[in-house]
């Protein structure tokens, strides 16, 4: 039986981190299709075109929509599991993320090993 490809959308404007996350997922054992964009507006466009299994987004993004707002908008139409990353970690953000059903919350900087472990757990990939 052919393994199903998991499609992941990364929304991160910090290029180094975006690239590293792409690389680490690309080389990880698992069949991932990774798409990266740096704005929530672009992400919404991508999501309207394709089905995604996981959304990984930064909290603070250039443009009108931030990470939490992006998750909030998607919650109403498509139920895509999401991971929130941020350097602006506060109790309020954590609470809000929890309310929106975010699967995981990573405060920058985080360990890549932990990060991949969590993604595999969410996507049920070994």
């Amino acid at each position, binding site marked *: 039986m052919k393994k199903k490809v998991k499609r992941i959308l990364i929304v991160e404007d910090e290029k180094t*981190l975006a690239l*590293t996350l792409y*690389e680490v997922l690309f080389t990880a054992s698992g069949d991932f299709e990774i798409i990266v964009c740096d704005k929530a507006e672009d992400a919404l466009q991508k999501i309207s075109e394709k089905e995604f299994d996981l959304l990984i987004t*930064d909290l603070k993004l250039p443009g009108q929509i931030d990470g939490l707002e992006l998750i909030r908008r998607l919650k109403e139409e498509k139920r895509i599991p999401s991971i929130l990353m941020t*350097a602006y970690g506060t109790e309020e953000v954590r609470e809000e993320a929890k309310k929106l059903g975010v699967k995981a919350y990573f405060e920058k900087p985080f360990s890549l*090993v932990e990060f991949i472990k969590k993604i595999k757990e969410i996507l049920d990939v070994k």
Partner: protein
Amino acid sequence: MSIPFDFRMQLLLSLSREISGSLNLSQIMRFIKFSIQTFISNIVWMNIFEVEKDKLIPVIEEEKERFLKNEKFFSEIKKKKEYIYIEDLMEKKYDYFPFHKEAKSALWIPIKRWDKIEGLFGIESEIIKGFKLEDIIFLRIISDFLGVSISNIKLLRENEERKKDFESAYEISLQINKPFKKDKLIKIFLKLILEKFNSIYTAFFERQGNILYLFDYYTTLNGFSLPHQVLIGEGTCGKSAFSGELIKEYEENVEGIKSKMAIPIFWEENLIGVIEMGREKEFSENEIFLANLLSNTFSLSYQNSKYYEELEKYINQMEKLVHEKTQELIKAEKFALIGQMSSVVIHEIKNLLSGISAMAEFILLKVSDEKICEIAKMMKDEVEKAFKNLSNILEYVKPIKLDLKKVRIEEVIKKTLLLSQGFFEGKNIDLEVNFEEDLPEIIMDEDKIKEVFLNLISNAAQAIESKGFIKIKGYKKDSFVIVEVEDNGIGIKKEDIDKIFEPFFTTKKGGTGIGLARVKKILDYHLWEINVKSEVNKGSIFEIKIPLKI
């Protein structure tokens, strides 16, 4: 509610003006009654009793019977010559029968002029312990003014024909009884009496111990001078100071100033100084009488000028305080702005660093070349260090929320010391902890205060290069608990002491300048004070002052 000090002072000044300016006791009484009721609450009765040849005459009429019942009490005050405060009338400590049926406490003050009892001043309150210490001090000062005016009134009564002199004395008193400072008052008074008595000179000698020092003088004669100091007992003014009475001297065979007069000036029983004047013509009986009256007026104004100076000092202090507080606020605002800005900048940097950190970790995960891995590891470590520093700064910048509980300060120190073990490693440091027994529990945010002491102890340990001591002391002083952290380390430079609590100020290599700023911030939120004493190469003492009542 207690009335602010400056308000009381102003009231005193205006009261004294009214009291000394009037020769009518019932008018004075009305004025005092009105003024006193504005700052002492619960007064139900007040009256003045004039002493007239062993008899007491109330200014406001009283029931004869009650009045007579208190004869024993009145003679007791007259004998004691000091005020009597009956805190609770129910205790029956004195043979006193209150004038008002609701009275619960009473205060009686003898009205003295020099050592003579001129009257009694009685006040009753409808509550137990109706008078605070400051009220009593205030009322005693008022009764001093009353003494001056009653003795003037009596003089007038005995000398109806001298009404004119009273009027001139009253005129002069109106001109000098203003909020003047001492030197200005004396200048004005000397000029006024020079004109009034047609003198060649008028002078004021101030007394200090056994010597009269020339304070100021006024003269119409060119080249005239007076000795700078006179011993009590010598010369006209010295003789007057010695006897405590007005001295008049006349020398026929002298050119110019043949006649001299010296008037002693008293406040309560104390000789303040002497006014001396001289001219060619002899001083008349009427003039001597007027001079006596004026000495009364002058002593009152002299006393007032001292109150005025005190008041001004107080106002200056307040102004200074306001200025200091304003500067603090400006500083605080500046730091708040820095805070906001640094918060934004720090987050940006954190974001950037998280990419670098992830990259370094990626290399560690994917590359097997040892050399490269070592470099990646170093990169990751450095970035982590930067993160830690940034987080510290962020911690300082964000506002503090206190979680207050009652805690024993010595327990907090004990717990902090358990966390401080690492600071002492590799150094030979003698730790001495000494807390007074039975220190009260203190309301605080325990975690934040632990952070404060952790910081202070860490700094103390860092200040010690290899061998030294750290002493932590806790004791009660007045209404404060004081905690001191002392070390004999490298100390702080004099020019740095004022800056050590400012954020981002540091003298340590690799320091962020946040530790002590954070300490100050936490203590500010607690309304605790921190002071530093330090000397280079001798050590530092950080003293925390914890008020027990806020």
